[in-house]
């Protein structure tokens, strides 16, 4: 059984919602990524979404856009993201790592090269923001061949007909985009999200994680009532940005923030 499945089964048995932090690899420093990943796990993260930086991250709000810019300025590349996953796996063989990003770097690396390298590094799933299922057949088939999950987004605008397509191609879990907007937006409507997730449950069988706009423990807790996992991205990166560049204080800040959210859940 793969790590994603195992993790959500265990969470389900414990009746615990999953905590899914997102960081951009290479931010704030190239050398900080693997230590941050371990810190996240120590503080209670169940799954890690690791952002593959891209020059044109169209679905991101300013906080994650800047994280991508910093990472690229630091010299981060797709290959180095995969190297980080491999390094993380040397000390952690249980926490699922999802590679999240945009398609162009993968087009340039080549789908098969990427799938092969990601599997070898020890990644568990891939979420490509600008690849809806209509364009995802080729990459998803290769990911499947290398035992990697294809995670697809579900949005408030996704029609019931299209849910069928997402269900057909998606594996691992579904990522529900909680609002019409970019990452880090502020107008999250909890009641609406709850209703939507309840509706999705009638159509989808995989665990549902909710993200975009969850920026504090209270919102995370409310969303966790209905979701199998909550994704925290912009709020975490914002904390890291203000923690400064000293690695010890950075890791302490990361642990404290994630720990607070874990406690609230």
């Amino acid at each position: 059984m793969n790590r994603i499945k195992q993790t959500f089964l265990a969470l389900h048995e414990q009746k615990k919602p999953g905590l899914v932090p997102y960081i951009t690899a290479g931010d704030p420093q190239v050398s900080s990524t693997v230590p941050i990943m371990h810190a996240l796990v120590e503080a209670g993260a169940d799954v890690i979404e690791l952002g593959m930086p891209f020059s044109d991250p169209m679905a991101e709000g300013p906080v994650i856009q800047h994280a991508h810019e910093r990472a690229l300025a630091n010299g981060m590349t797709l290959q180095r993201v995969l190297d980080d996953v491999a390094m993380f796996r040397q000390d952690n063989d249980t926490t699922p790592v999802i590679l999240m990003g945009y398609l162009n770097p993968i087009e340039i690396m080549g789908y098969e090269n990427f799938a092969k390298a990601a599997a070898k590094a020890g990644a568990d799933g891939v979420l490509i923001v600008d690849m809806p299922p209509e364009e995802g057949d080729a990459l998803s088939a290769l990911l499947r061949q290398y035992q990697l999950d294809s995670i697809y987004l579900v949005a408030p605008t996704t029609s019931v007909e299209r849910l069928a397509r997402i269900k057909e191609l998606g594996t691992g879990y579904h990522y529900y985009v909680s609002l019409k907007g970019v990452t880090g937006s502020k107008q999250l409507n909890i009641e609406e999200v709850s209703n939507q997730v309840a509706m999705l449950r009638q159509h989808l069988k995989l665990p549902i994680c909710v993200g975009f706009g969850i920026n504090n423990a209270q919102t995370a807790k409310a969303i966790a009532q209905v979701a199998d996992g909550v994704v925290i991205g912009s709020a975490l990166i914002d904390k890291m940005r203000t923690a400064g560049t000293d690695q010890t204080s950075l890791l302490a800040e990361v642990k404290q923030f994630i720990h607070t959210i874990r406690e609230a859940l």
Partner: protein
Amino acid sequence: MSKTDYTQFPDQRGHFGPYGGQFVAETLMKPLAELQRVYAECRSDPTFLKAFHEDLQYYVGRPTPLYYAERLSAAAGGAKIYLKREDLNHTGAHKINNTVGQALLAKRMGKTRIIAETGAGQHGVATATIAARLGLTCVVYMGAEDIKRQASNVYRMKLLGATVVPVTAGSQTLKDALNEAMRDWVAHVDDTFYIIGTVAGPHPYPQMVRDFQSVIGQEVREQILKAEQRLPDHLVACIGGGSNAMGLFYPFLGDESVAMTGVEAGGEGLETGHHAASLSGGRVGVLHGNRTYVLCDADGQITETHSISAGLDYPGVGPEHALLKDLHRVQYTTITDEQALQGFHDLCHLEGIIPALESSHAIAFAKNLAATLSKQKIIVVNLSGRGDKDIHTVAKIEGITI
């Protein structure tokens, strides 16, 4: 080999062979599907088409003349060069053909807010113009760098009632403005219509913009038959995203006797890496909703482009051009900044027309091409815009203070 039917592209899902498609975040799939549905209706709806053509005639000033550039032809010393005078359109470029069409769609779909991206400001002005006429709210995203370079167009947009939002992300140019417009659209999908200015972006934009711009080639066909009783031998147009070229080329794709050349911005020369020639110097990738040729590094990061003309300064290109390149139906080449400047001055001096720096690339190539052809040959160049917006750029390069 059987003859290719170029009207078969794109397919139902917006693919031009391996190119095009809908590479967008999930949230945008619904508004794109709606747009696709409404546009499919409108394409063959006589009422819509009548309204579109009336606007083109009475508001834009079409048809634009096809002008025989006698002195430019003589200077080249070969083929006859005709200019399609898109510079004479309202707002001074071909861009308005498309904004008129898309704004009518917006109105039909009940959208009250229009957004657009702009580089040089021509598409922004054309969008602000039509939004003012139809009484729609208009927000234009523009790179902070471009805002500095194109102050007069920024002011024109403001005069027309649009809000111009500076984009400070990334390279602060056209591609970043497009990213920001996409982000706005995701957040306002219910009431907002996104008017993309070129034949790129997710389906149905490449098809829709091509169709609206095809009026250029349709007119050229009639006009050249009247003037010369035959089709031209060669069509020439500049290419950034590729909308003016697509508009000129499309109605002639099936005419095997008509050769076509798309002229990309060679900047300081392809070998220097400082250019904006996606087809000549790029590789196949995915950017802004479609698969096409893009300028990126070995890691797939989109690279900054360079061109003397802001309107060509874009790291992608329309997917239909990518297909036409692979099929060898259209030849793609480059003209450097320096050559384009020469073309600019040639047209000023020889014909009394100040061309846009974008169009100057096509002029420069056509002049060289004409020199290699006999006097019986006919070349049609798309003079896609006028150059008033560029006089400060040209003056600065030549060390002149206006």
